[in-house]
């Protein structure tokens, strides 16, 4: 008897028991930033603990950016690791008067570009065929990709009801009046939320521009 009989799960059981795997906890940056010098200063001074704080603050953003741009989990993990080790290596070139976000975004952009360059080399040597299929569809790390991740991150920080209003207005393209009715809010209030929400989106884009 071959062992192959053991794996052959009934697909329907598989479906029923599809578990929630791989849910990583959100990094909490609460409690770290208190009573200390600004992260930027501590990091520039080469304080190792500041590196951990920097990671907590930006890991989700960097990893998301790598996932969206590279569309490959292992590559995204490796790239994220590289971003932070590069940040550590080049911390002396960091200007503490600038936001860490822009600096990290710049490093991420370069790391992603490196991955694409490497893939291109690999593709030239690899056999053409199905192997190339999935990765070929991956978008280039354009500014648009960065923008898309930045606004989602910023949206998450907005909180209700603004995040929902912005989402309905621009991701689902609903008329403002419909949104007002759905959320049982005066139209003017919805518009105010949109003004403020868009301003926050704009500011986060500006912070992440390098």
């Amino acid at each position, binding site marked *: *008897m071959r*062992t*192959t009989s*053991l*794996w052959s*799960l009934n*697909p329907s*059981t*598989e*479906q*029923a028991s*599809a*578990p929630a*795997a*791989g*849910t990583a*906890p*959100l990094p909490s940056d609460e409690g770290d930033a208190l009573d200390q010098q600004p992260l930027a200063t501590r990091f520039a001074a080469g304080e*190792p*603990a500041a*590196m*951990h*704080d920097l*990671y907590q603050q930006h*890991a*989700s953003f*960097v990893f*998301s950016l790598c*996932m*969206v741009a590279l569309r*490959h*989990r*292992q590559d995204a*993990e490796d790239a994220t*690791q590289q971003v*932070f080790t590069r940040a550590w290596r080049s911390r002396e070139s960091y200007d503490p008067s600038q936001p860490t976000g822009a600096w990290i975004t710049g490093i991420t952009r370069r790391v992603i570009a490196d991955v694409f360059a490497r893939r291109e080399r690999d593709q030239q040597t*690899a056999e053409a*065929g*199905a*192997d*190339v*299929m*999935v990765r070929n569809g991956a978008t280039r790390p354009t500014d648009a990709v960065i*923008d*898309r991740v930045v606004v*989602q991150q910023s949206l998450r920080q907005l909180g209700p009801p603004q995040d929902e209003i912005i989402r309905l207005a*621009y*991701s689902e393209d609903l008329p403002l009046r419909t949104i007002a009715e759905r959320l049982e809010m005066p139209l003017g*209030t919805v518009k*105010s*939320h*949109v*003004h*403020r929400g*868009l*301003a926050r*989106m*704009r500011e986060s*884009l*500006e912070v992440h521009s390098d």
Partner: protein
Amino acid sequence: MTEQIPPRNGSSSDGHLTDEHLAILADPRLGRTEPTAEPAAGQAHQLRPSVQREHLTLCGPCRAAFEATERAMEALRDPAALHEPPAELWDRIAAEIAAISEETRGAGPSPSGRGRPAEDRSDRDRPAEDLPMEDRSGEDRLDGGRPMASVSELGSRRRRRAGTAEHPPRRLWVPLAAAAAGAVLGGAAVAALLAQNDPAEVQPPVAVTTVVGDATLEPVAAEDFTGRAEMVETEAGDLELTVEISAAPDPEAGYFEVWLRDAEGTQLISLGSATAGATTFTVPAGIDLSQYPVVDVSHEHFDGDPSHSGTTLGAGPMEEPDS
């Protein structure tokens, strides 16, 4: 919502456009008081935007802000999924940074292993790290995968695991493989097989990769799926799984993801996404492979949901090589 809209750069009295101006310019819907009725009122409002547009052509900062607002709206049209990095990623980074710090300090390699992220840990993580090996609860730390084992720790941790009651004295796939092969081989043969493999575990890894297991991936949800998987132990002691998908349906709006799981599909560890052809994954250090004896290739969609989609294209149990 009780907060006032903070005016941009003070207010429009300094001549610059406010958040509201910018939003209305970027999205005219926001300026319309009544989209259907009262065209006269709309008319009256259109004068101001023309003044504002003129300002835009003259004022660099306002133009940049306007362009950023448009970028934000454009970026919102195509929502990107946010992903949380795996918990153990920080440990990998900390280990690498610790190694960099040692290089730059010019110190020789630490006897505790090159991967040891000692000084770059936050204080939260430090106490456990400072405990002697014997005092640590290796069991607790394995499932979360953190902190990551240094190379020199792996061996002892594996042996520690070998001693526990719940698990047979192997870190590989014996429970499943033995259950399947038992009818043919019998208990004694299995024991012999295990004994035969032990020296490889006790000795430090030599300068070769060792094949520690392989699997034939048989189709589950997809009929036209064939593939195989092979796990090797590298020179550095890391486990690597190479999954070769030789035939598979087009993933269309999705991708393949590779998992290690138990036979029931209730315990899963994601190794990452795979392409048709061969993809190699690093298997998390410290994993108890007897708990995750099955290699599973699923079809996932770009939905940002990190869990298994429930669609297993193909799967197969890992077996000892030549068993």
